[in-house]
């Protein structure tokens, strides 16, 4: 894929159960789907947790987790708890 990897941070406290407490990762990815696949391969079950129970901030912009979001070399990706709306 080339270029600098993206930085991924897990904020949701439940995420740590899958990773043994590891919260930060550097991953080569072009889309959010790549990010989720890499993490799920490393920590089976983490992918579904991220898809179902978190939102994501990509360079500060908050999105619902969706595969199509592009990520860029050097991007900061935070999986955060889902925001409860009113």
């Amino acid at each position: 894929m080339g270029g600098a990897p993206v930085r991924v941070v897990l904020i949701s406290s439940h995420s740590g159960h899958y990773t043994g407490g590891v919260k930060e990762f550097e991953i080569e990815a072009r889309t959010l789907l790549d990010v989720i696949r890499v993490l799920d391969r490393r920590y089976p079950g983490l992918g579904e947790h991220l898809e179902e129970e978190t939102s994501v901030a990509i360079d500060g912009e908050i999105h619902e987790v969706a595969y199509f979001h592009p990520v860029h070399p050097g991007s900061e990706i935070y999986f955060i708890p889902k925001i409860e709306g009113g």
Partner: protein
Amino acid sequence: MDTKVIKPEAEGRGDRTLKIVGTSPVRPDGVPKVTGLARYGADYALPGMLWGAILRSPHAHARIRSIDSSKASALPGVKAVITSADFPEQKYEFVGPERVAINFWHMTRNVMAREKVLYEGHALAAVAATSKIIAEAALRLIEVDYEVLPHVIDVDEAMQPGAPLLFEDMITRGIDPPPNEASNIAKRIEFSIGDLDAGFAAADEIVEMNFKTAPVHQGYIEPHACLARFDNKGQGEIWAASQGHFVVRAFTARLLDMNIGDVLVHPAEIGGGFGGKTVIYVEPLAAALSRKSGHPVKIMMSREDVFKATGPTSGASMTVRIGVKRDGKLVAADGVFKFQAGAFPGSPVMNATMCGFAPYNIPNVRSVGYDVVCNRPKSAAYRAPGSPISAYAVESVMDAVAAKIGMDPLQFRLVNACRTGTPTVWGPKHAHDGCAETLKALLAHPAYAAPLGRNQGRGVASGFWFNNGGESSATVHVNEDGTVVVATGSMDIGGSRASMAIMAAETLGIEYEDVRAIVADTASIGYTHVTGGSRVTYATGIAVVEACRKVITELCARAAMIWSVEKDQVSWEDGSARRAGAGKHEPLSLKAIAAKRALTGGPIGAEASVNAGGAAPGFASELCDVEVDTETGSVKILRFVVAQDVGRAIHRSYVEGQMEGGAVQGIGWALNEAYVYDDAGHLLNAGFLDYRIPVASDLPMIETVLVEVPNPNHPFGAKGAGEVNIVPVMAAVANAINNAIGRRMTELPMSPPKVLAAIHTAPGK
């Protein structure tokens, strides 16, 4: 009244071409609403319809030993009686894909109590009969054997060891390793950045205060109501007022163990929601009664039911500590927020922990939340859920800190205001501006320099709310005469049909009057999430614009066919197809192309469905002037100014209306509204006489300043505008009272007895 629009100089998006966006045309659904013909949840009827009525618990906490409904069933005119036995058990798990993790084990118990009743007013049986009077009479014939249990109302008491437990086996989530003992604490949440101890060690001044807030009800004027028609083939329809008919469909289907596609929900007009109609209460009961009786069933809640059995927002107990350098730079902040969830887990405490410190650049922050169950109705979302509660504490302490270092409270906030790139306590950096712009707008407002009289005071406060995006669907159809119908799946709670029509007309380049916007039922449009979280103008707006763009592509293709040219030779401008570089062809208007639709391929229309991300957050800064009557403790609001970043106002008057309405709801929260319980856990003020929401004579004209820092992720720059306006209100009022009488009001509501008591105690720090 006094409305200003402020556009920052460095505006990224030119608005030179906008013709309709930002104006205030009459809403498409207006006439039926001023002539009494609009149909709300309670206004539907069907032939053969029965009336449903609900039996509610007289106890705050009791085990249900038995329910005997045989006498009720035998009453002439009674066609069905249901209890929890008519609903399948649900698995105990927290699940998506809604934004909030939902536990259907809890939801089915809230809709209809099973083992225990957990609050006064908790539903435990329902009856359908040929008249309201018979249904009510049947309820009195249902015999329930209760084992009354000790109860707990207050959040601090509910957290104590030995407190009566609502769920005997509930272990707190979010603590590693999990505690051994069950408690009423459903969840603990913590966010932190930096080094808290080092931050406070570096502070020149530190202020710490404790706060309590009362739960307050959304107070929508329309009680929950619905009509359901279900048949024994397992299909049914519901007419309901809600903030999301797709959510009503999903939840009702789940609780009745039906396929989602077998339930059709028609969007009735909704008489206010403010978050409180994002969940279900009466719909599954009416559906189950209809399924059992074979007749349509209508249920209307009374106002007393609404107060006793539907969601208020949480009351809270909070401690906030803030450290600052003498030059005004914030260095550390710590908050502990304990929220009453009501009878089932799920208070908005997470939002509170995330939003409280969000307006500011603070390098070292910890924000801790507890979600605590107690014997009150289950809390539901209320306008920027959670954020106004933590903001009351944080913004009160901010005011005290500013006073301590002798800084102007707005300048103090401006020095520390977050901007694009400022870290947040939940991890990522802010991606949008807006906070500083609202503060500058308030600093420049004449109200900030206006003189004050005796016993008068001025307070300011700021607030943050995420605003939501998410899933929305829209269709755009060109009619035979060239007018356009826009349908979306978003319930219209405050004029959104008008904003959708504006965005469609602007995109297509046609007149607003040529666009009719409607809300489609769940079978006629794609899934659309609730009208809440200030998401509709943003996310559904994006879907509308995308659908319009698809229609434009098709219109250009039809024009190309008419002109016998390649599609790429045609462009769309000002509502007409134009042929590139050729003067000999007159433009083809939308109406002209619509007239040739059959000749060129048939009807023209498009659907767009999105999962919209990038909804920029909202910021508001507000000013309040009060006068305190030192004999009675009564507080009069003299002046109130809301400066809010709305990105870009689509329908100006309805954006102002959101800001005015949010401010007034906050004023009620600040001064009057509270649930009053007796020692037995009975709610004593379950009516609008004693639960007093603001009335017209309590208020001045609310002044609004629309700050427009456009959101580049929306075609017209819109940000959600519905919620953040309520966030700063309680703190602004409290700070104004402090300015008037020199007393920090740390408990809501700031009602006359409390203000009087404060006046008669020695001044604090």
